[in-house]
């Protein structure tokens, strides 16, 4: 199962988990990215995410295919939220299951590392006094 979504509604770890039900896979690794209350700089009021939808889904599909080629894993789920997020809300869920958990851990880590490098999604951090597109400037 490959389940890739970009949603403007709240993400649910339980709903994601319910989809990871391959009968030969007892181990599931899940990475969850949440909106932090603080960055290195200052207190975060909210985050605003936007995506280039069509291309973002294509890049997520490439990640899923790469992961399946590199590791013996079964189900791969990548859900990314867009829109306005408050502190504590889930921005991204990546879940991978496999017959052997080592592959699930490695594949999940690879997927989030690669997503952050290649998938055209952007976040703006909004502070009390100002805002900033993350990573935009050197």
């Amino acid at each position: 199962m490959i389940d890739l979504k970009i949603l403007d509604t709240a993400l649910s770890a339980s709903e994601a988990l319910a989809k990871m039900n391959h009968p030969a896979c007892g181990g599931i690794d899940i990475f969850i990215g949440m909106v932090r209350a603080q960055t290195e700089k200052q207190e975060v009021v909210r985050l605003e995410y936007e995506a280039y939808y069509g291309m973002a889904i294509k890049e997520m599909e490439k990640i899923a295919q790469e992961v399946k080629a590199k590791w013996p894993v079964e189900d791969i789920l990548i859900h990314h939220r867009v829109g306005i997020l408050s502190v504590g809300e889930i921005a991204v869920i990546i879940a991978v299951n496999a017959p052997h958990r080592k592959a699930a851990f490695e594949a999940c880590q690879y997927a989030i590392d690669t997503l952050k490098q290649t998938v055209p999604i952007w976040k703006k951090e909004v502070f009390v006094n100002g805002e900033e597109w993350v990573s935009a400037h050197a």
Partner: protein
Amino acid sequence: MTINILAFGIAKEILGNNENSFEVQEGINVKMLRSFLIERFPKMKSLASFLIAVDGEYAAEDVVINPEHEVAVIPPVSGG
């Protein structure tokens, strides 16, 4: 010829809109388009980097652009 350029994130703020229309020379490639954008919008130079996507794929510098392509400016991504 006229091309439409999608812009996202900080590039949308610099170019002004999510969808932007520009008059460019026939046969323009990705490298030339990048130069065109930097010249027209000097703030693009302040970005850590930016890429061009053509039809939803990151495009190499020598890809030639025509008006039928979906062209997008991709500033540094920051998903996750």
